[in-house]
């Protein structure tokens, strides 16, 4: 049943997967700059996550694509056509909101059929299509329920079906999972990803949760203070962050002091090739916990401060000789015997490392 439904939908959507372009978007709200020249291109059929701390402008960018905000300057293009002046209801963009946004006076089927009603589709036809979409999101048996009779996760599923009802060219998800509890959130994000892949619809997903972004998106665009920091596939973003901000926002990062000269950095008693933008002199070397080696050593200058058991690995926090703290993930069997206060030696693998200007503390 599901298969036949999705295959017909898929054809409809795949034909018109759209390219979305933001061109130097700028928007100020009074004294705060929400967008400060955002340039970003979303490829047809791509699942792109907009990631950033609150207030970085990611939601504003999404709302500009939806037509709810208007840029002070710059343009939004869909398939090369400038839609900046097009009103929201002609944008052809389905949206799922952060807060529960179902119409309280309509049941699930009528909520999904709302857009079709606006398009003056006949009652029987739109109810059939709405029922189809509810099947698609796994709520075929809840079609007569009203929003207050549905759980948060179910409400967001209905909202997703509603957003897809008009076969939009772009799907916009504005932190749709943030109001849900952890388990539901995990299920629903996988479901969203599955649907998106089946339908092949260009999708923008706003989130402040880096794990969410990395796990579902084709590419992740990290934003900071109204600008794009880096837009790359999750693996690249994690493994080769372009800036210190991205490195620390995505995943866990420790800062270990080093000395930069001529593109190499002296850190933890050895010299490694350096990447990233920093002036020669005192710098911080940014290290992922899984890259940092920790070995019990009676002569070691480092001291274990704390350990946390995370299942497959143990996260060990080590205080180095100069007082900075670094985090390392060790396999559980290697971490036995590393109690708090144990002397250790910390090492880095033979790879280029990312450096950044010394953090003020």
């Amino acid at each position, binding site marked *: 049943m599901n298969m036949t439904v999705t295959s017909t939908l898929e054809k409809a959507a795949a034909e018109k997967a759209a390219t979305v372009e933001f061109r130097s978007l700028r928007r100020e709200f009074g004294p705060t700059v929400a967008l400060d020249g955002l340039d970003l291109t979303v490829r047809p059929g791509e699942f792109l996550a907009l990631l950033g701390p609150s207030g970085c402008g990611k939601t504003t960018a999404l709302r500009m694509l939806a037509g709810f905000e208007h840029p002070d300057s710059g343009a939004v293009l869909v398939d090369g056509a400038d839609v900046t002046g097009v009103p929201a*209801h002609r944008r052809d963009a389905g949206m799922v909101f952060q807060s529960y946004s179902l119409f309280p006076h309509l049941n699930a089927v009528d909520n999904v059929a709302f857009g079709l009603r*606006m398009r003056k589709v006949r009652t029987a036809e739109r109810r059939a299509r709405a029922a189809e979409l509810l099947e698609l999101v796994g709520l075929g048996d809840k079609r007569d329920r009203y929003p207050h009779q549905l759980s948060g996760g179910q409400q967001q599923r209905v909202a997703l079906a509603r957003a897809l009802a008009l076969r939009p060219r772009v799907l916009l998800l504005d932190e749709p999972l943030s109001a849900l509890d952890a388990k539901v959130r995990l299920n629903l994000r996988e479901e969203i990803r599955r649907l998106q892949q089946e339908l092949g619809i260009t999708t923008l997903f706003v989130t402040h949760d880096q794990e969410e972004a990395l796990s579902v998106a084709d590419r992740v665009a990290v934003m900071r203070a109204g600008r794009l920091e880096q837009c790359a596939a999750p693996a690249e973003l994690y493994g080769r962050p372009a800036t210190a901000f991205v490195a620390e926002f995505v995943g866990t990062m420790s800062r270990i002091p080093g000395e930069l000269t001529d593109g190499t950095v002296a850190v933890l008693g050895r010299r490694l090739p350096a990447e990233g933008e920093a002036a020669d002199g005192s710098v911080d070397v940014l290290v992922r916990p899984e890259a940092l080696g920790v070995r019990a050593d009676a002569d070691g200058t480092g001291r274990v401060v704390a350990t946390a058991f995370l299942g497959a690995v143990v996260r060990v926090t080590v205080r180095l000789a100069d007082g900075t703290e670094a985090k390392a993930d060790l396999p559980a069997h290697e971490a036995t015997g590393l109690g708090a206060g144990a002397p250790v030696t910390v090492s880095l693998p033979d790879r280029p490392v990312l450096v950044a200007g010394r953090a003020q503390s």
Partner: protein
Amino acid sequence: MARRLTPWRWAVLGLAAVYFLVPLAASFVFTVDDPRHGVDFGAYTGIVSADGFGSSLLLSLELAVATIVVVLLLMVPAVTALRLGAPRLRPVVEVICSLPLVVPPIAFVAGIVTVLKWGPQYLSRTPLFQTFVAVQNPTFPVVLVLAYVVMALPFVYRALDSGLRAIDVRTLVEAARSCGASLPQALVRAVLPNLRGALLNASFLTLALVLGEFTVAQLLGFQPFAVWIYNVGGSQAQMSVAVSVLSLLVTWALLLALAGAGGRDRTASSRG
């Protein structure tokens, strides 16, 4: 938490009942008690045939309906626009809408009387003169509707505001817009149905206000129901009290009918 009716609660309930029911019962006894014949419902049967009963009641109801329509057409778009577009203006509008509570009706009507006298003198040669005549048409005094709209503002504003507070207007409108609804469509199809309770409350309060209003109507020289009751009272004491009791029941029945009609639709739209 189950609440039991403790003796203390019974005492409060009893006191309230005495306070409200004793005058009502006394009024009723007064209307049916005839020293010569014992119980006599003559006062009630006399009402229906009394001169002006039907016409004044009808006038009051017409005024109430017109006032409700005008005040809702005025306030629903205003309060919604306020919430969507200019939330910072809310306190200003709240204060303006509360003014009729501060200005006593007697001062209000004195102002209206002055304008009604002054207007025709200065405008006698303009088409506006006819306007002044028309608003004072005794078969349907528009001027009373205008006055009642002003007097109902505080109640209507509060009812609508609390109704809008209960729903996320902005998100509902945006959700509707992203579903292809234009702004007017979004307001009518997505917001208005969810304000049913608030609209009902506002209508309720306006209806009760108009049916019971006396000062403005009396001083402007019209005769809706409340004024008629007063006039009848001057000549026939028993009948005037009977009319009061009856009007109480009529108002009550109207409010119940309104609640019943709205309530049924409401349960249909939000079962559970």
